[in-house]
């Protein structure tokens, strides 16, 4: 969350010669990031990104305190000038009756004032406008000025519109309210509201004031109201109603309740000065459960070990003290109590280390690589990432383009029954509704999106998600590709074979698809490892289980001695029934004799198939006699088994 701090306002509490740009730079390095430094007339504005844990820095005073600690670390003198708040003089006996619920609101500070509505003085108007807040009138401006200066949101009611006693309660749900920006809202259950004696809702606490109790030109008496609310309820209400006022954003981060009374006193002072204000009631302070602060012990050894640099002991103590911590120094370390505005943020030793290290200066800490003391043995064969890279590179050099598609798909792209699908409960759109179970549909949609491209070769290696009742889905790495254009089934089969060959996978084969679609299943060790699908004459896809590939991939090498004796090769033409698979015939021929080195199909026409057969004996020259005996045996076997004719 960003906040705009006006330089002239800041310097009311910060005495330093540092320039605005020095303040901006050093705050960024050691505290909160100054995103922008803007010069406006004779003033500067810091636009600061305050992290959620530092609600205390959402104020001019908070930033002034922080800067006063930091600047001296960079050799620039600076001191914090804390404001003094005085209990106001009461000049009336008006009564305020508030019934609080401490579970909803931690602290309420309030007072009734007689005021004259009018314009704010120029400097307040300018500071507010520069801080990004619209100036309305002196009554409203004071609440905003307070919020920016002290960091506690404030509200002002027209006291005469409230209708007596107010009660703080949680909404039932369904109440209709109109906020002061003329918008109507229907409340959910559990919003923090104030209800008057007539049962009317008069405030949506911590978020925005309501139309029915807002100050107007006729306002004579006001109730200045500081409410310190339960942050979680504020967040819920603010998000549900989509009202993101600065007060709401601040309140949902948690504001220090100890600031409420300061803010009340400061508000009264401002009304007295700029709205002819007179306090006509006793000030009210309802504060039942004060936040507890625990002290934290930390050793100097721990500080230095975690920072990795020896910070002088007294530096650590001084830094914390200046940041508002109570510090007791012992021989071995520090005993520290955080200030009220840091209790939600600083709870453990590491929090203290952060305070010390950042103010000491992260830039002063050395930069060294952690020593590598031990490492587990590394197995390249077992490293899936290695095989992924290898396959991706092969695909690249075979002309494929890698795509990365969304893991979430529409109902149309989900393959299978949607009951089996992992469904997103809060999708961004129906196009991203289910976690996909297959990759191919996503790839096909890429092909569709690139309609004008004639030849497409794409692939993806990504997870798919298989629903498992009662546990996380099975995330499986899949390897899929699509080729559109001039392509045959055998090229895709060849691509897969080449990958298997490169990865040292030997025990694979192709079989009929289980699902009777056109194409083939790929099997490794007789286990289905994926399939090829022929969609069209010029459109083929495949999807393989990459885990199975990795499981079977191997880097082991085997040497066969180079034979001195030349092979004998011959082609054998065979007439075979067309239903007989070539692979079966090749296996049969290979199994005939140990001297057959290799068999391949080189030609096929009608029922005639020609096989290229290589014979070799590694230990001596083969004679024609030996080859002819084997050939005859092949012929006999094929005739017996397949009724082959020669």
């Amino acid at each position, binding site marked *: 969350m960003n906040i705009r701090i006006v330089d002239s306002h800041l310097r009311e509490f910060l005495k330093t010669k540092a320039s605005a740009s020095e303040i901006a730079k050093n705050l960024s390095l050691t505290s909160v990031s100054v995103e922008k430094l803007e010069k406006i007339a004779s003033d500067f504005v810091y636009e600061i990104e305050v992290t959620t844990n530092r609600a205390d820095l959402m104020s001019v005073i908070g930033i002034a305190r922080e800067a006063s600690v930091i600047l001296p670390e960079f050799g620039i003198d600076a001191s914090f000038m804390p404001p003094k708040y005085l209990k106001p003089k009461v000049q009336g006996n008006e009564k305020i009756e508030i019934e609080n619920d401490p579970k909803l609101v931690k602290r309420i500070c309030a007072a009734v004032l007689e005021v004259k509505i009018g314009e704010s003085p120029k400097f307040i108007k300018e500071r507010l406008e520069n801080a990004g807040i619209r100036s309305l009138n002196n009554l409203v401006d004071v609440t905003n000025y307070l919020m920016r200066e002290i960091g506690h949101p404030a509200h002002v009611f027209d006291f005469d519109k409230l209708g007596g006693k107010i009660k703080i309660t949680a909404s039932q749900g369904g109440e209709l309210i109109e906020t002061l920006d003329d918008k109507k809202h229907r409340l959910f259950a559990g919003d923090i509201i104030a209800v008057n004696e007539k049962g009317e809702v008069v405030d949506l606490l911590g978020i925005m004031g309501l139309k029915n109790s807002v100050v107007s030109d006729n306002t004579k008496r006001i109730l200045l109201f500081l409410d310190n609310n339960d942050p979680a309820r504020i967040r819920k209400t603010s998000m549900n109603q989509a009202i993101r006022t600065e007060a709401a954003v601040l309140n949902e981060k948690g504001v220090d309740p100890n600031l409420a009374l300061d803010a009340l006193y400061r508000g009264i002072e401002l009304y007295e000065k700029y709205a002819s204000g007179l306090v006509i009631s006793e000030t009210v302070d309802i504060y039942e459960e004060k936040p507890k602060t625990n002290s934290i012990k930390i050793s100097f050894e721990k500080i230095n070990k975690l920072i990795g640099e020896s910070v002088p002991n007294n530096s650590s103590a001084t830094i914390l003290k200046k940041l508002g911590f109570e510090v007791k120094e012992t021989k071995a370390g520090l005993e520290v109590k955080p200030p009220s505005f840091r209790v939600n943020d600083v709870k453990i030793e590491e929090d203290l280390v952060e305070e010390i290290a950042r103010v000491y200066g*992260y830039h002063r800490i050395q*930069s060294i690589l*952690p020593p590598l003391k031990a*490492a587990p043995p590394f197995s390249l064969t077992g490293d899936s990432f290695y095989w992924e890279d290898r396959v991706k590179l092969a695909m690249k050099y075979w002309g494929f*383009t890698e795509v990365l598609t969304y893991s979430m798909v529409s109902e149309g792209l989900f393959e299978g029954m949607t009951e089996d699908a992992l469904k*997103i409960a809060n999708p961004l759109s129906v196009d991203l509704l289910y976690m996909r179970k297959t990759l191919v549909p996503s790839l096909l949609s890429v092909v569709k999106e690139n309609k004008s491209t004639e030849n497409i070769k794409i692939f993806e290696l990504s997870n798919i998600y298989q629903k498992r009742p009662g546990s996380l889905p099975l995330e499986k790495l899949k390897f899929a590709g699509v080729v559109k254009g001039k392509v045959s089934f055998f090229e895709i089969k060849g691509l897969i074979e080449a990958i298997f060959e490169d990865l040292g996978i030997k025990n694979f084969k192709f079989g009929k698809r289980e699902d009777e679609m056109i194409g083939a299943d790929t099997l490794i060790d007789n286990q289905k490892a994926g399939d090829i699908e022929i969609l069209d004459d010029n459109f083929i896809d495949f999807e393989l289980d990459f885990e199975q590939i990795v499981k079977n991939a191997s880097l082991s090498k085997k040497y066969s001695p180079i034979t001195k004796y030349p092979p004998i090769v011959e082609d054998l033409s065979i007439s075979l029934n067309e239903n007989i698979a070539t692979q079966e015939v090749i296996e049969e021929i290979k199994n005939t004799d140990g001297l057959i080195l290799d068999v391949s199909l080189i030609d096929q026409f009608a029922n005639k198939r020609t096989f290229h057969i290589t014979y070799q004996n590694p230990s001596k020259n083969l004679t024609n006699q030996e080859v002819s005996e084997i050939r005859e045996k092949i012929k006999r076997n094929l005739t017996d088994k397949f009724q082959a004719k020669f």
Partner: protein
Amino acid sequence: MEDQLINLKNNAVSLILDAENKEELEEIKLQFLGRSGTLTTLIKELPKIPAEKRKEVGALANEVKQTIEETIKSQITNLKFQTSKKIRAKIDITNPAVLPPLGHLHLVTQAIEEITEIFRSIGFKRVRYPEVEWDWYAFEALNFPPKHPARDDWETFFIDEKPHSKYGPMILTPQTSNGQIREMEQTKPPIRMLDIAKCYRRQSDVSHAPMFHQFEGLVVDSDISIAHLKGVLDFFVKSYFGEKRKSRIRPYHFEFTEPSFEVDITCGVCLGSGCKLCKEGWLEMGGAGMVHPNVLRNGGIDPEKYTGFAFGWGVERVLMMKEGLKIDDLRLLYSNKLEFLQQF
């Protein structure tokens, strides 16, 4: 006989010099020097010559044979030269090349590869953990308070499944930090992990895609300090972005680290002096911090004995910062327009 030999020689030489290829030369060689070649036939008649002249004619015949052989040899060399001259004359090397097939790896894959190698060189082990995860691993164990904004359904994708009795709702990981707990559960220190994975957030605009990638580093050991985090950070920045680039850490706030840092690197254009493209010379790269003791505890590691640091940065972000690719819509990376993908 002498005349015959001299004629034969002249005849052969002129034929050889006219020959245009190796085949012709072979034929000529056969014609003269073959088993029934003309020279061979003549030599066979040598014994018929009177003894006193035989020696002289024999020497001449030998000389003719040698000349023919040498001329053939030199003509072969000559022919080779001619051929290469012909080829040279024929090539227009500016004609288009014939390329082997060459495809493209996705930009994100290329970045992941480089990041992996950089961290591998200083001993980081790459791992992968679930993308669909229990709340415990993605939030609760990482010290997120129950009502933290990141845990509501405005920012994180929830899966429509029954919550786990112990681990809470099922979600899509909005960051890779679940890897911290998963790694600590599996590995005893020393830990030096690099987890690169897909992440998901309910955001889709020009600078956010609902799916993106992060790389998460985790180092846990005895005596790990902020100085070590700075060391690894500097190493990465100088390796990935170049030696001229510098890094710095600034205070920030994350639930799962304490202290927490925002990491900046110097702008690649002005190298830190400040320009229109950066914030006073610096660009934000991502978050980092010392692992919160609660997180160590939730991962089964004793925070009294061990400390650690962690960082989680966007792959797409460092990629854009490095290459200065001015991709106007980040979602283009996942739109899979081939015209885009095939540029890289």
